[in-house]
C-alpha cells in the first residue's frame, strides 16, 4: 500500500512538472498560433476574391457560415465561403469566392490528403482555374482530372452545394 502511494506521488509530480512546462509553452506560442491562423485565412480569402478589399464574417451560432466581400469603395461584391467534401482518401477542404450574381471567382484547396500524383492534383492551378467565372449551374460541367474523378467530383460538389446555400443567404442583400 505504501509503495502504491509512493508510485502515485512520483507520477503526480512528473505530470505536474509536465503540465507546468506545457502551460508556459502555450502562453508563449498562443498568440502567434492565432495570428498565423488569421493570416492564413486572410490569405485564402484574398486568393479567391482578389477584387475585394474587406471581408466580414457572417456567423450563426458562433460558427462562420460565409464571408461577405466588400470592394475598396465599400460596395457589396459577393461572398467567400469554405466547403468540405469527402474525397478518395481524405476530407478535402476548399475555399471559394462568389460574386453576387452567382459566378465563382476562384477556388483554393485549404486541406487535402489525396493520393499523390493523382487526387492531390486538385490543388494545382490547372484544375482550380476550371472554376473561374463559372456560374453555379455550370459547375457540373467542369472536367474532372483523369484518374482522379472522385477527388475532382468531391471538390466540384462541395463548392456547388455550399455556393447554392450562400447564394440564397446573400440573395436579399444587393
Amino acid at each position: 500500500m505504501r509503495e502504491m502511494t509512493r508510485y502515485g506521488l512520483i507520477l503526480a509530480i512528473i505530470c505536474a512538472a509536465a503540465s507546468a512546462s506545457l502551460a508556459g509553452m502555450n502562453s508563449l506560442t498562443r498568440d502567434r498560433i492565432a495570428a498565423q491562423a488569421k493570416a492564413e485565412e486572410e490569405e485564402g480569402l484574398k486568393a479567391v476574391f482578389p477584387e475585394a478589399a474587406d471581408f466580414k464574417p457572417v456567423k450563426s451560432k458562433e460558427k462562420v457560415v460565409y464571408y461577405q466581400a466588400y470592394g475598396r469603395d465599400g460596395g457589396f461584391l459577393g461572398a467567400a465561403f469554405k466547403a468540405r467534401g469527402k474525397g478518395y482518401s481524405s476530407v478535402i477542404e476548399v475555399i471559394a469566392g462568389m460574386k453576387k450574381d452567382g459566378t465563382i471567382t476562384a477556388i483554393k484547396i485549404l486541406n487535402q490528403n489525396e493520393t499523390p500524383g493523382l487526387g492531390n492534383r486538385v490543388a494545382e492551378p490547372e484544375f482550380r482555374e476550371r472554376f473561374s467565372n463559372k456560374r453555379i449551374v455550370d459547375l457540373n460541367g467542369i472536367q474532372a482530372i483523369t484518374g482522379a474523378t472522385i477527388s475532382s467530383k468531391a471538390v466540384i460538389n462541395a463548392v456547388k452545394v455550399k455556393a447554392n446555400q450562400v447564394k440564397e443567404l446573400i440573395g436579399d442583400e444587393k
Partner: protein
Amino acid sequence: MNKLFHEFFKGIIKENPTFVLVLGLCPTLAVSVSVVNGIGMGIAATFVLLGSNVIVSLIKNTVPARIRIPCFIVVIATFVTIAEMTLKAYSPALNRALGIYVPLIVVNCIVLGRAEAFAQKAKALNSFFDGLGMGVGFTLALILISAIREFLGAGKLLNHAIFKGFEPAFVFSMPSGALLVIGLLLGFFNLFKRIKQ
C-alpha cells in the same frame, strides 16, 4: 571526450535507427514523400529525442522501475507537444504536411527505445549525445529515402523540378513505394557491410 564522440557517431552509421535498428518505420514510411517533410520530421524527432533522453537520464534514480514507462511517456509527450506548438506557431504549412505524424512521435519507438535502452542507465551528457546522434541518423535516413522518393515519384528535389520530360512513377509517392525504397536500401547496406567484412 572520445566516449561522447562514440555515443554521437554510433547513431549515424553503426546503429542507425532506420537502417540498422529498424525502428520508427511508420513515420518514415508516411512522411518521406518529399525532402522538406523528411527534414522537418527529422528535426522534430531529434528535438524530442534530445529532450526526453536528458530528462529521463536526470530522473532515472527517482523513478521506480515498475512505473518507469508511464513516467517516460509523460516526459516524451511533453516534448512532442512543445515541438507541435512550435511548428504550429512558426511553420503551419510544414505542420499541416506532417499532419498526424507529429503527435505520433510520442509512440515513435526510437524515442522510447533510447529512453529504455540507453538514457535510463547513462549519464545526462552521454544521453544527450546519444539522442543527438540517433536524431541525426534518423534525419539523414529520412533525407536519403525522401530524396529518392521525391525524385522518382514526383520528378522533383526540394520542390524544384529537375529536368523536363521526365515522367514520374507515382508508385514511389505512395506507401508501397516507401516500402520498396526502404527495403532496397536496407538490403544494399547489409550487402555493403558483408562485403566490408
